[in-house]
Structures are given as C-alpha cells and as structure tokens.
C-alpha cells in the first residue's frame, strides 16, 4: 500500500471531487465549444452573447460537480451524482476487475488523474471518477485491488467462498500463480517497448483495412467529381477496370489505402502505446503507456480469465506476436483503447514466454498443439471447391446478364482466382487450428490469416459445450467451446474447431470432471 495521508473519502466519508475536476470539465467543454463559437462568429452573432452562452453552459458543470460525491467503505465504492435524477452507484469491492488511471493533456495541466473502475458484468466502465489528486487515485487503486486480495480465497473469479485462505492460492493449483509468492517484493518490469518496437508494432499492425475504410468513406461522403478531381486528375468518369489505365488507377487507389492504413496504424500505435511499460507486482499486472493521454492500467492476476496471443500474417512472416489479457469486466472500451494489450508486439518467443509465465506454465516458446483430424482439412478443401463453383456460376450469370464482358474469357480466369484463393485460405485455416491440454491450462488456436491462440486455465471455464453443424457431422467433426467470463461483443468464446466428435465429447467430459473436482 502506498503510504498516503488519510483522506476522508477513502474512509467512508462522502466527499466531492477536487476543484480541479470542475476545471477539467470546463476546459474540455471550452475546447469542444470552439467550433460552435466559430460558427456563431461567422454567423455574426455578437461576441458578448457567445461569451454569455458559453458561460451559461459551464453552470451545468458546476452543478454536476456540486452534486457529485464518492466514498469507499468497507465493502463498496459508492458514487452518487445527478441533480434531478439522483444516481447512486454501488460497486462491491469483490466485483472490481481492474482499476485504470488515465491522464489526458487537460488532466496533466491541472495535475489530476481520472480513475476508471471496471467491475464484473458491466457493459461499460462501471465507476468513473473524472479527476482525483494523484495520491488519492493511487490510494484508491491500492485499496480496491489490494484489500480484496486478502479477502479472497480463489484467484480467478468472483467472491470469497473458496475453502482455503488467501495464502494457499498462490502456490496451489491457481491458474494464475505467476511464479512463487513474493509478497513484499518490489514491482518488477517485465516488458518495455522502445520507440523502434512501437514502429514495428504499428507497421505490422495490419490496419490496412482502416485505410481502405477511410478511403471508402471519403469516396462515399465526398461528391464524386471532387474525388475524381483529387484522385484521378484528367479523368471524367470512373475507371473501367478492364482497361489498362483503369487498372493503374485502381492499383493506385489500393496503394493509397495501404499507405493510409500504415500511417494510421503507426500514429495510433505511437500515441496509445508510447513509453509502454509492463510491470508485475506480487498481485497484479500494471501497464503504463500513452503519449498525450497517459494510462496506468492495473489488472490483478486473479482477474485474468485467459490470455490471447495473436499473430497476424504480416507478423507471422517476421516471427512476431502480440499478447492480450481477457478480463471479464473490461468492456468494448478496452478494445478500442488497447487496454487489454500487455505486449503490443514482440518476438514470438518473448510473447509466449510472457503469456505462459502469467498463466503459470513453463516458459518455453509456443505450446505444442495437436492438429485437427484430416477430415477437417478435407472439409475446408471441399468448401473452397464449392465456393469456386458457386462463384463461377454466379460470375457467368452476371456476365451474361450485363453483357459487359466476354464471359468465355472472364469466367474461367475469375474462377481460377477464386479457386486459388480458396485453396490457400483452406490450407491456412486448417493449419491455424489446434488444441492442447497443458494441465491446468487449455490451449486452443484458430484463424486463417491471423492466428489467435487462447491460453485458458481450466479454472476460468464456466461452461463446456460441443457444437456440430450438419457439414461437420458428415465428417464426424465437432467444435468444443470453452465459455469463460469475458467482455461481451469483443470476441467469441475460445474454441477448438473441428475436433473428431468423439474426442470433443471426451474432452468435454474429462475437463468438466476435472473442473468439478478442482476444489475438492
């Protein structure tokens, strides 16, 4: 615990946010109001009126500030606010999943910190304290994450009713043992990203799609002539893809999309992960990052439900990977802000070392996987052929219909392209599959272009489910899903796709049994 002078809200006495919080809101709204004010100015609204309006607007912030109070008592964090609609939010300590500190530029100017408390079962940030003095923020985080440690017997989820006391969890079968107990050891830095690493992360981030999307959006929103004037000088109409000039322009557009994708990815990565440092304390992982907005995210080990190692195709070429933590309470916001990344990029070896260390496996590179049966491969190949036939028929019909091209040439070429792509994807998709049982951690992998590994401690599995569709049943295959507490809508449950159906059923039963016996 950080020794900080006792402050009343931490002792259960309701208090307001520091005055600086008001400052944060006012500064933010002033910045936000600049465009509106400019519009008014252009519209020749008198300057004095604008100032009065802007000031009137600030009154709402004063009211919000006056009506906002928070306190931490023995069992919960309590936030009350609102003028007409009083809102009282009670976040029980044992449901707190992570505490993230955030300092935007405005916060830094005013010398305060925002605290976000993520709780289990919440769709969005459960408790946000917009501005606190840094010392109070730290003390609050320690109080929320530290105390609940001592209360709880079991490391993975929920509350305290496991039979053993807190001491035993660390060296027992706890999935996130994170090494031997080191109660009073100083925090230890376990990963750090240099500017060069971040450049690599940004370039290999695979955000080409973003660039394409932006380009697409621009071409949708902007008038066609305007786009043409900017992008296609000397062209009065959309390029004909069959002509050489048209092809060139399309290639140019594609190149632009990729370039924009690279640049966005690069800038975003640098901004979000600047100065990235991953620290391990005895009970939690701490990430510090961010250029303009400074983040300090803390996730207790016992709140980590699973780890994900991702290798997109670009990174796979260079032997790179990234690592994410799956925490139940963190909703979609963490995905957007990258709070779940604990290693933005690193060598594959380093990534797995880190992931395995956190889940308590021997750190020795990627865990060996069992391949799926050969029917799984054949199913994918067949799928590629079927897709090709469908594409050929569809292409033929479309070609005949619009009579724009000669179907006898285009359809075979088109079909061949589809076939080659399909076969390649089928191969990648099959080779991306795999599973392994490294007791007490289950490992599954999927993904054709981006390989997504999930390292799931059996202890965090809530439900085991085997599923099979008619195509899978034809080949005696089934998928085994490992349902864990995870944020909604970010990604699906970890699963082993296309196991032999008997193996799937066997694993379901075996793991269910092991899970049931886990606490005996």
């Amino acid at each position, binding site marked *: 615990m950080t020794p900080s002078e006792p402050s009343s809200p931490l002792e259960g006495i309701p208090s307001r946010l520091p005055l600086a919080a008001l400052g944060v809101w006012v500064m933010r709204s002033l910045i936000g109001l600049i465009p509106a004010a400019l519009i008014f100015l252009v519209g020749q609204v008198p300057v004095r009126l604008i100032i009065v309006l802007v000031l009137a607007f600030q009154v709402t912030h004063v009211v919000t500030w006056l009506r906002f109070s928070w306190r931490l008592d023995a069992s919960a964090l309590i936030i009350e606010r609102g003028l007409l609609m009083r809102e009282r939010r009670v976040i029980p300590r044992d449901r707190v999943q992570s505490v993230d500190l955030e300092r935007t530029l405005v916060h830094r100017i005013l010398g305060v910190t925002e605290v976000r408390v993520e709780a*289990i*079962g919440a769709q969005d940030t459960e408790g946000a304290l917009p501005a606190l003095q840094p010392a109070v923020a730290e003390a609050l985080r320690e109080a929320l994450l530290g105390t609940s440690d001592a209360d709880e017997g*079991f490391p993975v*989820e*929920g*509350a*305290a*009713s*496991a*039979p053993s006391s807190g001491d035993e969890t660390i060296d027992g079968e706890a999935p996130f043992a994170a090494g031997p107990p080191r109660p009073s050891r100083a925090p230890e830095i376990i990963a750090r990203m240099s500017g060069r690493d971040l450049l690599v992360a940004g370039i290999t981030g695979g955000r080409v799609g973003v660039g394409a999307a932006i380009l697409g959006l621009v071409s949708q929103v902007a008038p066609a002539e305007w786009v043409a004037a900017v992008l296609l000088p000397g062209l009065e109409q959309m390029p004909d893809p069959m002509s050489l000039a048209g092809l060139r322009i399309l290639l140019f557009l594609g190149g632009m999309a990729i370039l924009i994708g690279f640049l966005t990815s690069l800038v975003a990565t640098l901004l979000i992960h600047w100065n990235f440092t991953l620290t391990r304390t005895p009970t939690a992982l701490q990430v510090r990052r961010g250029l303009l907005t400074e983040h300090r995210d803390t996730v207790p080990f016992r709140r980590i439900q699973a780890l994900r190692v991702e290798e997109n195709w670009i990174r796979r070429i260079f032997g790179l990977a990234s690592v994410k933590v799956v925490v*139940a309470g963190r909703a979609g916001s963490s995905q957007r802000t990258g709070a779940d990344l604990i290693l933005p990029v690193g060598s594959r070896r380093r990534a797995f070392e880190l992931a395995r260390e956190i889940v308590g496996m021997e750190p020795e590179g990627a865990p060996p996987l069992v391949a799926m049966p050969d029917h799984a491969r054949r199913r994918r190949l067949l799928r590629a052929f079927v897709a090709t036939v469908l594409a050929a028929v569809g292409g033929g019909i479309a070609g005949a219909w619009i009579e724009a091209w000669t179907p006898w040439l285009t359809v075979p070429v088109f079909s061949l392209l589809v076939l080659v792509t399909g076969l390649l994807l089928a191969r990648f998709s099959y080779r991306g599959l795999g599973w392994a049982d490294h007791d007490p951690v289950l490992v599954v992998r999927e993904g054709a272009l981006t390989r997504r590994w999930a390292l799931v401690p059996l202890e965090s*599995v*809530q*439900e*085991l*489910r*085997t*599923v*099979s*569709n*008619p195509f899978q*049943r034809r080949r005696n295959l089934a998928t085994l899903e490992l*349902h*864990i*507490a*995870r*944020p*909604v809508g970010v990604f699906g*449950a970890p699963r082993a796709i296309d196991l*032999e*159906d*008997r*193996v799937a*059923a*066997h694993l*379901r*039963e*075996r793991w*269910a*049994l092991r*899970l*049931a*016996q*886990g*606490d005996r």
Partner: protein
Amino acid sequence: MHEEDEVATPIHEEPREPEEPQALEGPRKLEGRVLALWWMVAFAWALVLSTGAFMAHLLILPGIDALRWLRDLGPWPMVALFFLWAIFVPPLRYRRWRYALRDDDLWIRQGIFWRSVSVIPYRRLQFVDTRQGPLENLFGLAQLVVHTAAPGTSGLVPGLDREEAETIRERLAALAGEADDPV
C-alpha cells in the same frame, strides 16, 4: 438415430464409445406439453410469414420485371415450405432435447441442425431462475434459466412442468451451494 450418442461418462483414458452419463437421474425429456406449445408458436409464425409471402406477391413482385419467374410460381411453394417447417421442426426439436442433473454438472443436449451438448458445472452457477411467459402459463409450463459468469444465458431448459421447474431450481441452488464456489 442414435438417441444417446453424445452422452459420455467422464472418461479418464482414451476416448471410447460413450455411455449414459453419471447422473443423479438419467437424461430426461421435456414435458410432452411443450411440443403442443412449440407447434402453436410455429404455426403462428407460419401464418405470419405466409401472409408476408402473399403481400409480397400482391404488392412488390409485380413491379420487378426481373423476378417474373418468381411471380409465375405463385406464393404457394413458400407457404408450403413455411407450414412443412411448422409441422416437422417442433417434433424433431422435441425428440432431440434432453437434460440431466449429473453428479457435478447440468447436462443439456439440443439442436437439430446445430446440435450442441452443454456441460455446466454446479460450481459455476451464479444464479438459477424460472421464467414463465403467458403461453407457458397456458400449458402449465416453465423455463429454467441458468446463469454463469460467462456472458449471456448459459443454460435454458424450456419445457418443464411448473412445479418440476421449481424443484429443479431449488435443487440446483442447493447443489451450487454444496459445490461451494464463488458466486
């Protein structure tokens, strides 16, 4: 059809031919009444969809020349499809449905096309509800809903006798308590 084919006992060695689950009781079917309920709902849907098909034929299709062949076909094939679905799908679904309260977990098998077998350890139960819609009320049925910490509803057993559902709910709550795990 192999009725019980995915029901495996917890096995320790190699996968072998599955057997009956180690259950407090064997896998149970849903109440027969639920089939009547499902039929009712399915027929209602078939009626709605058929009305839709007729409307489409009268209002939309005449305007689209390219779809003349669809217009010539008439709405009847679609209507037949909807009703065939309403007649045959509920019993298939009913036949497939099984649930069992096993030693350590709740076991649920369901699905015609997408077949699934769920195993939810009692340790993982967060809370157990029973639900009753107006239609279920009519048939004296209730749904049993089981929640874990994983997002969404984990287990849902639809066609239980009202009292039976209550009994099972209490029993599951007790079992979850016995398993003594964080809630």
